[in-house]
């Protein structure tokens, strides 16, 4: 079937079978391999993307469900010159990236949280990333990175 949606701010049109997952369309049809496939059953969160601003597992979402809607992947997070944004920079700075496989999903989970809660507590951050598994870091550094980004954004824009 014909699918069209807004991907990272750009209009996309493709032809894919109706039973194709959003994850497969992103990786296999559009070549955006930043979104990872981990468990494939909605438990690890590494396939997380934003659908109309809400964090979802792209492995459990049909591409057809995204038709006519807005999808943001990790490729849409970087600054216009392609360099990491402040949250991604904080992940590097705090050692929140080790093997890196969970990182795209973690960054999107962090951005989804900060979009609705500009000053989250550590507990709120932990709840917000509860659907994203990391087997390397032990999570502390990831929570640190999200928390420090929240603080820095608050300093830059106190009204946010």
């Amino acid at each position: 079937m014909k699918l069209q949606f807004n991907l990272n701010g750009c209009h996309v049109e493709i032809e894919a079978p109706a039973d194709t997952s959003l994850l497969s369309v992103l990786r296999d049809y559009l070549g955006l391999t930043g979104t990872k496939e981990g468990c494939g059953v909605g438990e690890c969160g590494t396939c997380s993307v934003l659908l109309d601003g809400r964090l979802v597992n792209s492995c459990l979402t049909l591409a057809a469900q995204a038709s006519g809607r807005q999808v943001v992947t990790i490729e849409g997070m970087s600054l216009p010159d392609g360099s990491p944004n402040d949250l991604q920079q904080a992940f590097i700075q705090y050692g929140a990236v080790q093997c890196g496989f969970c990182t795209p999903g973690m960054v999107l989970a962090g951005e989804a949280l900060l979009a609705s809660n500009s000053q989250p507590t550590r507990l709120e951050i932990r709840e917000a990333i509860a659907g994203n598994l990391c087997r390397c870091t032990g999570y502390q550094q990831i929570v640190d990175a999200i928390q420090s980004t929240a603080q820095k954004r608050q300093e830059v824009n106190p009204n946010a």
Partner: protein
Amino acid sequence: MERFGYIRAASVSEAVALLNEPGLKSRALAGSTDIILQFRHDPHYCDRLVDISLIPELRRIEQRGGWVHIGAAATFSDVMSNPSVIASAMVLAQACRAVGAVQIRNMGTLGGNVANAAACADSLPALICLDTVANILTPAGGQALPVSQLVTGPNRTVLPPGGLLVSFSYPVPDSGSRSAFLKLGRRNAMAISRLTVAAMGRLDEHGRVAEARLVTGSATPHIERLIVVEQALTGQQPCAELYQHAANLAVDEMIRLSGFRWSSEYKVPALTAMTARVFAQVFEVGEA
């Protein structure tokens, strides 16, 4: 080769028409978090999915005439953050919050949870505790059925073929009512419920129990209010001994309804503690 087709319904009436189109086995698609996995077990699950998740009427949550109405395609995130739900039924807000993690709560819907009717479905004990009625639409017309009658057992409902769950309605509890939901899983997040309890209650002007309700999840084959427990509490002065008595009765009911099973050795002490704790939260104002 496509395993199934996809079509998006723009309205409730269109959805019912599509679900009942002759010659095609169609199923409603809402959150997709369960149904996508269903196809891996059974590639012939259906011929076509009818996406109902973007029908505005099915996402609506509103309080009207002493009832709260929740569209069947409202997501767990929608329900747990809705002011009417939080004000009237903390038990339901907490149950929705207990589901999966953010990603699942953003997609998964109340209607999907009920239609799937997993024994461990977190929303079921809360909905049944609130005496929620499910509103169903078929080509023959609408019908309303209490959720406790709609869901007859694990993964079993009496939802008519081609019927669409449109909404859920529960009466706003009497003023002074408090409710709570507790979940026991193997870890704090992303856990399938091993046991849940949903409770609601209200005290009279003398501080005695005017009304008490208790529903367990993952404990009995049919999820229902445990009337024996509720009656034992009514008229009594709330205290730790009373909650313990209620907990013992709840365990007796679980064993009576389910038999003594391999998991009972674990569930008996767990349900005892959870029942006593949930009633303490409901009746001890300021100590919850």
